[in-house]
């Protein structure tokens, strides 16, 4: 589906915040779209991007330039059109009983968490945002409460985002529920922390995706419920359900 780009702003070194007129009606936080950045055969496949916002038919994604696909995307101007399919995948669904939501985002993983936060202004949430350096910390100001951790200490505390997470007393409170998105290593660590503290939650996973709608079988993950396709059965999986590969 052709979609017109409304804005595509360079928000931090290597990061862009894009809005486009969506051909779909809405998207839930946790869902993603598949973007075709060129009509050419190279690059060939669509790129998965989490929905970071949706309002009045306008969809937002936040992305990091890591390779040729995102490079091409970053060169687009307002008025240019891209080709978007979706939204695909399941969504974050913290139970209503969850009083205290911890949002743990690594790098660009903050995007779907931000959307959840903006869509649920009434719910109490604390964000833990991690990244390599200060420019990898995105949208911190869009969260009501946030703690930042960077590997080089250029913003917030120095180290992994799991350190401030472990230090917070919230992990030990009843009604605490965690939503996380980020690199595999971080998710695995967060998963362990949750299990250790008996905290429930959901993790949004990432894997190379050929199609995004369940037919290429390129994105499977082993879970306690068996082999799942990340694109249709996920990308959000419950804490404790993913069988992490070594």
């Amino acid at each position, binding site marked *: 589906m052709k979609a017109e780009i409304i804005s595509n702003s360079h928000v931090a070194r290597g990061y862009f915040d894009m809005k486009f007129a969506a051909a779909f009606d809405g998207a839930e936080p946790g869902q993603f779209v598949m973007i075709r950045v060129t009509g050419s055969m190279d690059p060939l496949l*669509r790129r998965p991007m989490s929905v970071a916002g949706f309002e009045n038919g306008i969809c937002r994604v936040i992305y990091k330039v890591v390779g040729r696909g995102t490079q091409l995307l970053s060169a687009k101007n307002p008025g240019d059109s891209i080709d978007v399919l979706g939204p695909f995948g399941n969504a974050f669904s913290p139970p209503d009983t969850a009083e205290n939501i911890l949002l743990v985002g690594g790098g660009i993983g903050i995007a779907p968490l931000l959307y959840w936060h903006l869509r649920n202004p009434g719910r109490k949430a604390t964000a833990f945002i991690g990244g390599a350096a200060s420019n990898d910390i995105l949208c911190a100001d869009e969260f009501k409460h946030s703690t930042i951790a960077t590997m080089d200490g250029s913003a917030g505390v120095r180290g992994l985002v799991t350190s401030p997470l472990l230090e917070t007393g919230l992990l030990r409170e009843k009604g605490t529920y965690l939503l996380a998105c980020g690199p595999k290593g971080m998710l695995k660590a967060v998963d362990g922390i949750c299990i250790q503290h008996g905290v429930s939650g959901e993790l949004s996973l990432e894997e*190379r995706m050929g199609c995004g709608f369940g*037919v290429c079988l390129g994105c499977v993950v082993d879970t306690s419920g068996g082999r799942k396709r990340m694109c249709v059965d996920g990308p959000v999986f419950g804490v404790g359900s993913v069988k992490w590969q070594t």
Partner: protein
Amino acid sequence: MANLKVVIGTLELVNPVISASGTFGYGLEFVDKLDLRRIGAFATKGLSLNKRDGNPMPRICETPSGMINSIGLENVGIDVFEMEKLPEIRKTGAKVIANFFGETEDEYLEAARRLDAMEGVHALEMNVSCPNVEKGGIEFGSDPAFLEKLTSLVRKAIRKPLIVKLSPNVADIRPFARAVENGGGDAISAINTLKGMSVDTATRRPRIKRVFGGLSGPAIRPVAVRMVYECARTVKIPVIGIGGIASLEDMLEFLIVGAVAVQVGTMNFVEPGICQRLAEELSVWCEKERIADIREIIGSLKTD
């Protein structure tokens, strides 16, 4: 309106556009993406007697104008296909080509018999690019004599049209096409994926866990067109052209060199409605070119 109907054995297709095995799931994933009755048929993900989990991750990666996959023939198994998928598929009115494989001759035969008996399966497509566990792992499709025997055994065991899908990883595809014809196969489909490999230079690891995988997509089209042309000139049974089709033009290339129908694979991922679009564009194109019957195009290559 031009007549786009083509016939493969006793299988009649409303048009020559088929979606390829492994790229169209069990069809059901596409019901909201196109009208399954508007495409010639679809081929299911390769089915085996037992459910299979396939290879470890990662098992796909992108390459210039193509992709490599090493899904490892993951599928729900013939039982689940029959019980859970087929009843739903039947409701769509789609023409179904059941792609299947085995690791032994008996598995091939048993799978073929099972699928042959199922209402709603209209033809069988035999994937012979699988390692033969009885023969020390060489592929079923890598020895013409063996391929002829397997084709003939399966042909005798079933009633529905039998399509045999050839591997391009051979020095010369023509003896394999002849083997299928001699074995009584009703049609040939070609090509499956080219054996390829890609390395992540940052980690110095293969991008595909199992090191090798199958290259598909527009990158392989010139090889596919060549092989389909070679097959079509070698045998009288229909040849179904597969490999890198992304546009009307690409599809016409295969028809012109002699393919009776085509399959679209990788591009289903990029544009899920592509098969229906191509069928419609073909119809419009025939109209414009004043072609009354698709058969006027098939094999119409001029080489003088």
